[in-house]
């Protein structure tokens, strides 16, 4: 079953069309990477899912239940972490989670155990200070804790790692990976290495539509090998190869890159063998999401 289904979602800001007929399905127990460049409409889509933004057309279903703008009943299935989560700075993290728990109707004992468990999970268990003194990474972690508090069916994270240093990013990704056991995760990002690291599925948002969607392996396979890297031992060897094969590109003194089909590659290899050209490395360029992304947004 799809936890989230979006059908033909449209949204304009004035004359600017941000979303023009977006379709998206997020299957249960997946970590879904929602990829798009800055300003592509990722946050707009997420706010529409949460009923915080009025769409100009289309339908959104959470667990089969339709989302209405301004109403929050479908949000009981969702945990949301905005890109820059803002909390009541005069509260401590435990007080904040208590407020959230009471708002979603949890009982007192449940709130206490769940809050402590989550604060431990995100590494804020020993933190007694008020939120005012928290760093950005700590706020992000508290954001995840509040999002997971009522055991949501869908955890929506809006660029959770974009503003963090490498250590902070790793922590957040590890937490999201751990959260996979309990929930489905939809997270938007433009950091493709994060997607490759933890996501099981991904979709590319471009020009207001989903340009491509599928599991990470499927997406990778959509693109054939990008080519080969040939590194020669000496500069003259590289010079000879370039002279003979015009479609080789030089990236470093002894390194050549070749884009094209396998036939062409074998003819180069044949030339190498026949002329006994000393080669140091031959490497196939693995297709990456980054190259796919760049191709999609071209």
């Amino acid at each position, binding site marked *: 079953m799809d936890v989230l289904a979006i059908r033909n979602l449209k949204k304009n800001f004035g004359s600017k069309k941000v979303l023009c007929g977006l379709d998206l399905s997020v299957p249960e127990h997946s970590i879904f990477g929602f990829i798009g460049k800055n300003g592509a409409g990722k946050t707009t889509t997420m706010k529409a899912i*949460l009923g*915080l*933004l*009025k769409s100009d057309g289309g339908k959104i279903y959470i667990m089969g239940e339709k989302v209405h703008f*301004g109403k*929050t*009943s479908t*949000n*009981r299935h*969702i945990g*949301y972490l*905005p890109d*820059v*989560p*803002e*909390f*009541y700075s*005069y*509260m401590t993290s435990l*007080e904040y989670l208590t*407020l*959230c728990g*009471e*708002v*979603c*109707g949890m009982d007192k004992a449940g709130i206490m155990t769940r809050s402590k468990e989550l604060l431990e999970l995100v590494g804020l268990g020993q933190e007694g200070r008020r939120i005012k003194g928290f760093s950005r990474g700590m706020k992000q972690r508290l*954001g995840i804790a*509040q999002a997971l*508090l*009522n055991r949501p069916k869908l955890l929506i994270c809006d660029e959770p790692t974009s503003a963090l240093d490498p250590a902070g990013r790793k922590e957040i990704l590890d937490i999201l990976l751990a959260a996979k056991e309990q929930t489905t995760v939809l997270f938007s990002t433009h950091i493709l290495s994060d997607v490759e690291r933890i996501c099981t599925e991904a979709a590319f948002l471009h020009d207001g539509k989903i340009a491509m969607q599928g599991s990470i392996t499927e997406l990778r396979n959509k693109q054939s090998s990008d080519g080969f890297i040939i590194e020669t031992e000496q500069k003259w060897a590289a010079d000879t190869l370039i002279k003979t094969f015009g479609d080789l590109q030089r990236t470093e003194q002894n390194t050549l890159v070749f884009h094209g089909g396998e036939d062409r590659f074998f003819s180069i290899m044949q030339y190498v063998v026949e002329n006994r050209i000393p080669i140091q490395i031959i490497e196939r360029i693995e297709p990456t999401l980054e190259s796919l992304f760049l191709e999609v947004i071209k």
Partner: protein
Amino acid sequence: MKPLLAFMKKEYLEAARTGKLLILILLFVLFGIMNPAVAKLTPWMMEMLSDTIAESGLIVTNIQVDAMSSWTQFFKNIPMALIAFVLIFSDLFTKEYKSGTLLLVLTKGLSRYEVVFAKTLLLLSLWTFCYGICFAITYGYNAYFWDNGIVNNLFSSAAIWWLFGIWVICLIVLFSSLLQNNTGVSLCTGGTVLLAYLLSLIPKVKVYSPTILMDANSLLIGAESVDAYIKAVIIAAISGVICIAGSVPVMNKKQL
């Protein structure tokens, strides 16, 4: 009901921890003490100034002060306290829009009408509490120094002025749900009061304007009876309820 109570608890905690509650209490206590103090000190001040006044040709005779002077002072000072109240709480909603703190609690399932109700109840209760303190302090001192018995319709006048404060709070709530920044909220609230005041200058409209609720002095000296205020009281109550009820759909349609 539970989310509403939880959010109200948060509102009181916020008022306490951000120091707003302390400032308000100090302010209203100060005003409460000032009313009898100013009345008590008036003869002494006049005496000090009598020479200067005499030079300008006026002769200061024996000045009598009593509870009436102190209560007149109370109703002169309380508008300032209300203005301070409005300024302190003009950002009650707008601060949350700007910082985005509402986003998370709304996505947790808090309804938007509960946000409006919780904040309205906070304002109403704090106004009632602070106004009550101010009134009680002035009443206590007046009873100690003079006799509150000489004042007509004291409790009715106080209640009528309290209602005026409630009406202003309902305006704050309405403008807070309509507008994005606190300057706009203070200006529009002030502007509406001014408009109501200007309308009250038209003799036929006067009895309907909530601003006549501020004119407690005529009640105190017995020049007017409570009946003269009934229409304005009804208008203030109805328009107040409309403001709050109107804030809910406005809030529901607000893009956050």
